């Protein structure tokens, strides 16, 4: 009996709440047999701030836009985007077409910056810091453009129920086109660095595989799902705002390689393709942007009165850089706060795929595999090693794990 238990004993390695791959709190419990991961469990909730509760008990809908914007530091366009769409559907407000285009342009800028940020983090996780510095330097251009268009690098405060707060004028177009041209000129270089580099291929190919069937069952969304061959993209399937006027196709890795493997490499391909797609979308939006007002109701006091009297419910769905964001809103007449507000960020469902993609991997692959989902904890814990046989706990720090990952790259290079 004792003999049997010793043979089967696995170690449990808790990762977090300080994150192994990203700098946000989450805890993973990995059961390992030697270097191999047998099972994994996820513990979330370390940054649960009760934002939905505030929207239901304290704030009026216009104040809640600010809250929605602060759900996540990276996706602070798509959260207010789907929030205002949900409220608009509930209250029967139609935003003017020009606002639809400005919304789409800012959302695509956010996609470019988010994907580049991710690409840098991914390179850092496998110890390829030269690429990390390169990508983050390249990312500065889009950050400058975001500041130029919205006035802010991070929280952009562009959204209002029934439209947008700021215009993008004809005079600004040349500066925007200049940035887009810059990205087009370096796109091939980025593609070569990420897709042709031998080290990156060795560390990412056939690592963290998520099969199409698993992705469908676990509801994996966004680039992580598309990398597994699920052609699901809200901008294509149920287009909202200006996307409804454009012909958008969900990006899948077979467009480059001809096959879908569903590994980390495929997730890189999808994100790279989406950066290019985002550039094209912004260009088309600039071309087609109709003239007109920015807001359906410019007076906030009148808007608030309409919202207090409104009765109904609405669902706002937007394609964030990480996947589909859904806001559900229910409004009752005479109530200044929302009756129900439910937010679903893409990482919420993508985390369910973590056990599947980590199974069979080595500990050194954890950072890049986990980071490949581009998890974002704000929208939705270091490692402890438990020896089940000896009932002993020890702690593995992020630094140690990062070191293991670097070592693996070194060993492969030799």
């Amino acid at each position, binding site marked *: 009996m004792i003999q049997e238990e010793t043979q089967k004993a696995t170690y449990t390695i808790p990762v977090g709440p300080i994150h192994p791959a990203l700098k946000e709190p989450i805890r993973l419990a990995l059961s390992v047999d030697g270097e191999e991961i047998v099972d994994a469990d996820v513990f*979330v*909730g370390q940054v*649960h701030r*009760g934002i*939905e*509760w505030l929207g*239901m*008990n*304290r704030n009026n809908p216009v104040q809640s836009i600010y809250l929605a914007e602060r759900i996540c530091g990276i996706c602070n366009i798509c959260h207010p985007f789907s929030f205002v769409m949900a409220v608009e*559907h509930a209250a029967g407000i*139609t935003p003017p*077409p020009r606002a*639809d*285009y400005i919304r789409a342009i800012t959302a695509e800028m956010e996609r470019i910056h988010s994907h580049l940020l991710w690409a840098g983090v991914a390179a850092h996780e496998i110890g390829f810091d030269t690429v990390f510095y390169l990508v983050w330097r390249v990312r500065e251009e889009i950050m400058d453009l975001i500041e130029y268009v919205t006035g802010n690098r991070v929280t952009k405060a562009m959204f209002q129920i029934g439209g947008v707060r700021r215009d993008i004028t004809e005079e600004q177009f040349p500066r925007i086109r200049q940035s887009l041209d810059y990205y087009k000129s370096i796109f091939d270089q980025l593609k070569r660095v990420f897709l042709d580099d031998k080290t990156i291929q060795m560390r990412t190919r056939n690592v963290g595989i998520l099969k199409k069937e698993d992705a*469908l*069952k*676990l*509801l*994996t*969304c966004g680039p992580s799902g598309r990398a597994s061959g*699920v*052609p*699901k993209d*809200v901008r*294509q*399937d*149920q*287009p*909202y*705002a*200006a*996307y*409804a*006027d454009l*012909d*958008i*196709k*969900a990006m899948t890795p077979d467009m480059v390689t001809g096959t879908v493997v569903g590994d980390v490499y495929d997730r890189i391909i999808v994100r790279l393709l989406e950066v290019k797609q985002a550039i094209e979308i912004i260009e088309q939006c600039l071309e*087609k942007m*109709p003239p007109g007002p920015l807001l359906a109701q410019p007076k906030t006091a009148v808007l608030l009165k309409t919202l207090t009297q409104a009765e109904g419910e609405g*669902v706002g*769905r937007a394609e964030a850089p990480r996947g*589909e964001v*859904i806001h*559900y809103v*229910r409004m009752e007449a005479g109530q200044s706060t929302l*009756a*129900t507000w*439910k937010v*679903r960020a893409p990482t*919420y*469902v993508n*985390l*369910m795929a973590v056990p599947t993609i980590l199974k069979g991997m080595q500990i050194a692959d954890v950072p890049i595999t986990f980071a490949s989902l581009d998890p974002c904890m704000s929208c939705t814990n270091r490692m402890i090693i438990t020896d089940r046989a000896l009932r002993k706990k020890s702690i593995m720090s992020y630094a140690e794990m990062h070191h293991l990952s670097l070592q693996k790259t070194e060993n492969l290079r030799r």
Partner: protein
Amino acid sequence: MELLSPGEIVDSFKTALRDGFIDAKIYQCEVAVQRNIFKTIWIYVKREAFRGAVEHLCNLQEYPNLAIISSCDLGDNIELIYHFTIYYGHHLEELSLGLRVNLPKSDLKIPTITDIIPGALFTERETQEMMGVEVVGIPDERRLFLPEDFPEGVYPWRKDEKGPPDDMLRVLPGREQK
């Protein structure tokens, strides 16, 4: 795969669920310059027919995508809405479908659907801890977001006496307790 129109989908639910079907609504609005139609279907079902409704949804789309379960405290009842999307992967064809179930507060139980859709686990765990709805047969009944030391029997989304008591709420400086 044959794609049904929203009206045909509602009819197919009516025939599949018979008595379990209560009502349905189709919401449409126009989007942007080309005025494409944005469609949402709401289907009200009885609790007894709920699992049958999810199974029927699997006939329409092999893997229906469950986005989230939202719950609303209506006083005597709690309403759960399962937000599905079907027909994804086709340009302009996707539909949002909200499956609504009303539960009386005296009997807050709903069967799990994790055997049909494994990815429903997180949102079922969240509904259980935040709203106090018992998900019968859930394979993993631990809490999801709430910390371990959060008191039992307090459900943050409730608007009745089971919601967070006043002494649990921190009042920000310069504000008054509501």
